[in-house]
């Protein structure tokens, strides 16, 4: 138990510290929740539930330690306990539609206006994002989670092991299998980018 855990904070101190240390994590936490639930309302509920639990157990949080990892761990456990049963089937990617897009020369922007080079680049960027999101969403939840934590949120293997409550070796092997699975799902798109697997 830390020194700080031994003393009782006043409600004002607790609220001030809670807001200062934990609310800045709201953006990545909401994104994580959304990537897990694939639903904005569920993500909203999950994040609120996470902060409520964090507030209840805030006396056990050591000031200056990794608030982001702590909140992500709470959220992941809440998701497993309460939201997993409600999780929806992700939509499958229609690769042929994407291929058709890349191969067409008369792509139009919004409102039917012919695209400029910049607009087309933006459209392709959006399409890549949609493609990657669809492939990611189609992964099993355990695979999706390690990809999000590592590649989107930049957690270290050690932090991921703590968040997921698994050994580092399991983090590594799960990440490896997750990436292989993602590669398969992105194969056709990747080939169009010169990624010949």
């Amino acid at each position, binding site marked *: 138990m830390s020194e700080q855990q031994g003393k009782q904070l006043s409600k004002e101190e607790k609220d001030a510290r809670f807001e200062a240390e934990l609310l800045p994590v709201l953006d990545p936490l909401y994104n994580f929740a959304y990537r897990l639930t694939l639903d904005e309302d569920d993500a909203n509920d999950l994040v609120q539930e996470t902060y409520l639990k964090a507030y209840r157990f805030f006396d056990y949080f050591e000031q200056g330690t990794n608030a982001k990892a702590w909140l992500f761990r709470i959220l992941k456990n809440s998701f497993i306990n309460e939201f997993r049963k409600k999780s929806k089937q992700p939509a499958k990617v229609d690769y042929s539609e994407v291929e058709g897009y890349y191969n067409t020369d008369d792509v139009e922007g919004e409102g039917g206006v012919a695209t400029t080079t910049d607009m087309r680049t933006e459209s392709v960027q959006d399409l890549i994002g949609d493609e990657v999101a669809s492939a990611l969403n189609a992964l099993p939840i355990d695979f999706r989670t390690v990809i999000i934590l*590592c590649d989107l949120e930049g957690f270290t293997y050690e932090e991921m092991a703590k968040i997921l409550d698994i050994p580092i070796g399991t983090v590594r092997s799960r990440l490896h299998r997750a990436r292989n699975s993602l590669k398969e799902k992105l194969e056709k798109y990747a080939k169009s980018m010169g990624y010949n697997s």
Partner: protein
Amino acid sequence: MEPKFTEAYQEAPEEAQTANCERTAHMLDMIIDGEATPEDQQFFNSHIEECVSCFESHQKQKLLKGLISGHLQRVIVPESLAHSIKVKIQETV
């Protein structure tokens, strides 16, 4: 002159190369995630300088990671969420 026993059973260069490729493949994720030890990083860098196949694998893995970090759009947090959290905490605690 007959070769010594140990000379006759030295690892062939191809086998050594295969072993190096396997070692490289094993550490590929750690390399792109910045989790490799300096020794492993040094070995990896030396190996991909002379092995096209492993060099390509490295490029592909970096591309895959870049697709996630660079192209997956972040969702925007609802403006009301922070306020809702504060209200909920005060109501229930």
